[in-house]
């Protein structure tokens, strides 16, 4: 009883324990999203969204917790051991039909010497302790034909000694079907992905903040870079900005690849000492209030592009600019990809690196665009660009070191330029445009000293 009294006292409080001035998702937006999902469902549907699990590192030490993105999207609840239930028909709680119910671990609300208790959301019709979940589910599932539910990740486990594979989702389906014959189980992605892909103004503001923080870090890294530094020193400068400006963490492992490492697409060892004449690819993104930026800049470690580096860099920049010009509502993702590849082929032929257009794929072996949002590779179910989508555009060129047919000035160079693009009526807006990417601007910025050049001794 005492616990529940505390719950209701907290219901009106702010959703997140944010610092004053920090951007937040308004509670009204969560309510609106839940309503949109409920409107898409039939009265014989029920949806359950579970908190992500805690990943244990050792003993009583866990890895940093990251909430399931669907849970964040629908109610902003940031803690483990919770379930969100959405019922168009309503579940009877205290004589009233509740459509959105959050079941939470009531023990987590007890403040201890070790953990601060979570704040509760005011976005659900009601919040109930988890020990009431079983009874509520039995009641809620009566007459339900379709249950939308996805297990928290990972759904697949491989036991290393025997090599046996366990597909948890398959087991769950079996168990639920045994218990509720005739029940169809569908992934929550079905109704949620299309909603998540179109960003509201509030989400754009959060993404812009994540972008601005990332850009601040990259700007300092560009100023700091010099031969003799280690890749991880640039990473430290960038991630310092994340913490300095209130971003929780990187949205993905920072990629700082210099010299030959620039050719490794998901390189994140970041432990090479950079040399004069290297290019360094910095592919990074801060996560702010759940939303992740994704920006890549490539710079010459010495502060000045060599002739070969500049020619390749200008080619990538041209690919990006000409592709940006076609990105608008109604254009398919395939058309975006094809435009980049068309310009890529043209530029590589101009530089004498290829003779036929189809040879270009060798030097651009990856896709050039994906959605961003609550995940750096956000949900994606629409094949055509629509107003409100935010996607990356990230062409690159990767020239191997060991091909004598390639002019020496181009060999062993990896370049990628990535910006984040908000699709708006009639066109797009590059929300990362505040960060330099022209050759002359990069060289000018690199003449300055940055945070990474400050003396610091062990």
């Amino acid at each position, binding site marked *: 009883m005492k616990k529940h009294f505390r719950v209701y006292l907290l219901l009106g409080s702010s959703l997140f324990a944010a610092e004053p001035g920090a951007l937040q998702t308004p509670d009204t937006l969560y309510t609106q999203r839940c309503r949109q999902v409920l409107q898409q469902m039939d009265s014989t549907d029920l949806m359950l969204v579970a908190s992500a699990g805690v990943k244990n590192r050792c003993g009583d030490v866990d890895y940093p917790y990251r909430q399931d993105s669907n849970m964040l999207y629908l109610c902003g609840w940031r803690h483990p051991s919770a379930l969100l239930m959405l019922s168009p028909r309503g579940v009877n709680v205290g004589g009233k039909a509740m459509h959105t119910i959050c079941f939470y671990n009531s023990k987590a609300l007890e403040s201890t010497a070790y953990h601060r208790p979570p704040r509760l959301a005011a976005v659900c019709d009601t919040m109930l302790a988890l020990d009431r979940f079983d009874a509520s589910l039995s009641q809620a599932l009566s007459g339900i034909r379709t249950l939308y539910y996805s297990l928290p990740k990972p*759904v*697949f486990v491989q036991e290393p000694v025997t090599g046996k*594979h366990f597909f948890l989702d398959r087991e769950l389906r079996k168990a639920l079907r045994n218990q509720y014959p005739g029940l169809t189980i569908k992934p929550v992605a079905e109704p949620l992905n299309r909603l998540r892909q179109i960003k509201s103004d509030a989400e754009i503001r959060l993404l812009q903040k994540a972008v601005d923080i990332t850009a601040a870090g990259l700007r300092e890294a560009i100023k700091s870079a010099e031969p003799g530094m280690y890749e991880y020193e640039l990473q430290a400068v960038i991630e310092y900005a994340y913490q300095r400006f209130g971003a929780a963490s990187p949205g993905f492992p920072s990629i700082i690849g210099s010299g030959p490492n620039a050719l490794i697409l*998901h390189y994140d060892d970041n432990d090479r000492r950079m040399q004069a004449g290297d290019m360094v690819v910095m*592919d990074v993104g801060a996560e702010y209030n759940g939303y992740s930026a*994704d920006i890549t800049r490539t710079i010459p470690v010495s502060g000045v592009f060599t002739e070969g580096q500049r020619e390749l860099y200008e080619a990538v920049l041209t690919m990006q600019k000409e592709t940006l010009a076609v990105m608008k509502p109604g254009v398919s993702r395939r058309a975006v990809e094809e435009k980049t590849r068309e310009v890529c082929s043209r530029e590589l032929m101009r530089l004498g690196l290829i003779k036929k257009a189809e040879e270009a794929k060798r030097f651009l072996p990856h896709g050039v665009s994906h959605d961003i949002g609550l995940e750096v*590779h956000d949900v994606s179910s629409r094949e055509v660009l629509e107003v409100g989508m935010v996607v990356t555009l*990230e062409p690159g060129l990767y020239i191997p070191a060991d091909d004598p047919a390639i002019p020496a000035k181009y060999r062993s160079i990896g370049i*990628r330029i990535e910006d984040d693009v908000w699709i708006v009526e009639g066109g797009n807006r590059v929300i990362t445009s505040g960060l330099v990417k022209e050759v002359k601007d990069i060289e000018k910025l690199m003449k300055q000293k940055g945070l990474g050049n400050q003396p610091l001794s062990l």
Partner: protein
Amino acid sequence: MIRSQYLRRPDPTLAIALCPIVAENNHGLVRSFVQRCESASLIQEVDDEAAMFYENRKNQFLTDTRANVAYVRKTFGLG
């Protein structure tokens, strides 16, 4: 961050859907396949859709496991 090329392949959902079948038949291929998919976050990305896809077509897949293994091998370039 580049989205892994595995997701650019023609039909990753199908390949993931085949995983349980390959596993049930104790084929050594599945281990390297799954490891590569995991490192590419493929399983996390498409598991929901794959589960549905698998459920809808499992009878069809079960009739010709060898062809399915060949498909996975071809699609993902596993030797």
